């Protein structure tokens, strides 16, 4: 008797199976970062490539040593999360940072940000931002020394102290520039919006060009890799809070458009805050989470001691995520609140 294809398949749930696994999603996120990476390399030359390479080497290397040390069978390097963490960390660093610091940041990001909590899926804070916070606290000078931008003609030039020896302070004077945010904070000087939009202003490696990050963000939203409520919540709250402040005193406080497109807000809102592990799981929670970040960003930028506050805003809201999850838990289907 010939075996025919079964006419009816009886299986238990789940019936719809997603074809994409973690490595594929991570690969797509990395792809959507490509415009920002290319812009960073265009503006900051070979230093940009080297910083990205050093940071990724630190992150992936730590994960690799951990795998060897614990003799885990599951190969967590192949899921690309360490690669993505290293890449995101590099994009938040100044392009002229010594390479050993970027490497150390990668190690800290994976070791203290992820592995100590139990690896992928268990971290409470965004690993890349943990690495950056560590570097910011350890080397405040190197992390706030920004290189000026250039175009293709300067692609082979090194910026800053790229090849400084490990643990040694570099004494070479590098050309530095102020970021739009510090110009606003300390000189009350507003940078033109087109500069902010296309990234032709000093700043971290991957955060100067808002348009490149938006492109990646729109792609990820269309493919449903990130929850669009988080970045929208951030933008919404930044616009409202900054507009109110601007309305109170237009000279002292920058307009909302400046806050929206300057500094690390785009990178943070689109790529860092939407980390599926450290952000809330409910839709309502995502709104609260995003709006909390937006509020804290403007608060730190205008009233805090530092010109930039995206990193701390996201880390703080990451810490509140479990509480948000608990508060916004939807009722069980069919559950009716008792009237008493």
């Amino acid at each position, binding site marked *: 008797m010939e075996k025919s294809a079964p006419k009816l398949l009886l299986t238990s749930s789940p019936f719809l199976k997603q074809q994409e696994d973690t490595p594929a999603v991570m690969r797509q996120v990395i792809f959507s970062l490509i415009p920002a990476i290319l812009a960073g390399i265009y503006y900051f030359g070979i230093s940009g490539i080297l910083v990205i390479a050093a940071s990724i080497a630190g992150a992936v290397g730590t994960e690799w040593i951990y795998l060897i040390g614990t003799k885990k069978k599951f190969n967590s390097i192949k899921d690309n999360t360490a690669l993505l963490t290293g890449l995101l960390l590099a994009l938040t660093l100044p392009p002229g940072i010594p390479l050993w610091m970027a490497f150390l940041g990668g190690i800290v990001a994976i070791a203290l940000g992820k592995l100590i909590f139990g690896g992928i899926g268990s971290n409470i804070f965004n690993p890349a931002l943990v690495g950056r916070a*560590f570097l910011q*606290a*350890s080397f405040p000078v190197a992390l706030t020394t920004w290189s000026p931008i250039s175009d293709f003609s300067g692609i082979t030039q090194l910026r800053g102290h790229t090849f400084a020896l490990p*643990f040694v*302070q570099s*004494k070479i004077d590098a050309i530095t520039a102020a970021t739009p945010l510090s110009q606003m904070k300390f000189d009350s000087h507003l940078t033109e919006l087109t500069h902010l939009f296309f990234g032709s202003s000093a700043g971290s490696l991957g955060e100067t060009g808002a348009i490149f990050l938006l492109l990646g963000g729109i792609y990820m939203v269309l493919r449903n890799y990130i929850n669009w409520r988080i970045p929208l919540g951030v933008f919404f709250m930044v616009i409202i809070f900054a507009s109110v402040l601007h309305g109170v005193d237009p000279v002292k406080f920058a307009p909302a458009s400046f806050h929206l497109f300057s500094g690390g807000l785009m990178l943070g809102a689109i790529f860092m805050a939407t980390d599926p592990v450290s952000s809330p799981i409910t839709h309502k929670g995502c709104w609260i989470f995003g709006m909390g970040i937006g509020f804290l960003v403007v608060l730190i930028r205008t009233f805090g001691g530092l010109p930039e506050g995206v990193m701390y805003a996201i880390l703080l809201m990451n810490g509140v995520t479990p509480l948000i999850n608990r508060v916004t838990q939807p009722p069980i289907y069919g559950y009716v609140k008792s009237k008493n």
Partner: protein
Amino acid sequence: MERKSDKKTGFFATLQQSPSTDEFIKGLWRENAVFVQVLGMCPTLAVTNSATNAIAMGLATTFVLLMSNMLVSSLRNFIPKQVRIATYILIIATFVTVADYVIQAISLDVHKSLGAFIALIVVNCLILGRAEAFASKNTIGKSFLDGLGMGLGFTFALLCLGVVREILGSGTLFGIPFFPANFQEWVIMILPGGGFFTLAAWLLIFNWAKQRKKKVVQLDNKEIAA
């Protein structure tokens, strides 16, 4: 004290087998105040930003622990149960005041950098814990050895943290430059965050060493059984 493996030989083993010296040895390693009991976290995290501060704090605590242990032990039959904690605090506070003035006399700089944490030795749970759990139930001699062991173990632990934090955080050791010139300091190691990181790293190392030792002992027992 019961021992896990009774086939130990050598200097330390003979020391440990005599019960009174065991009271001294246990505080150094097996029941170390910081690494095993995790007591006295406030000074451990707050004043270990340099090796000098760590030693000063450790020795001051050792002195207070030693004296209060002895006094509590000698008065253990006269202190009413209902007011014992208040009495212990009073005794400890007396010796903290002595230590406070002695440190001021020796070095005003150290006194300034330790700040309020000298006065806070009064509420160090390690000292109160030893008074309540040990000195109030044992003889003066045993309490003396216990206080000395616990205090030196505490000093050792503070020094472990202080050395690492000072070398990385300011590139010096006991105030003397440790690296060639132009060392890039890791400022975070001087800040409170660095204290937590360093303590966590040391606890990791100690627990790892302890687990390894346990495995070795288990293997030994299996061999004996077989």
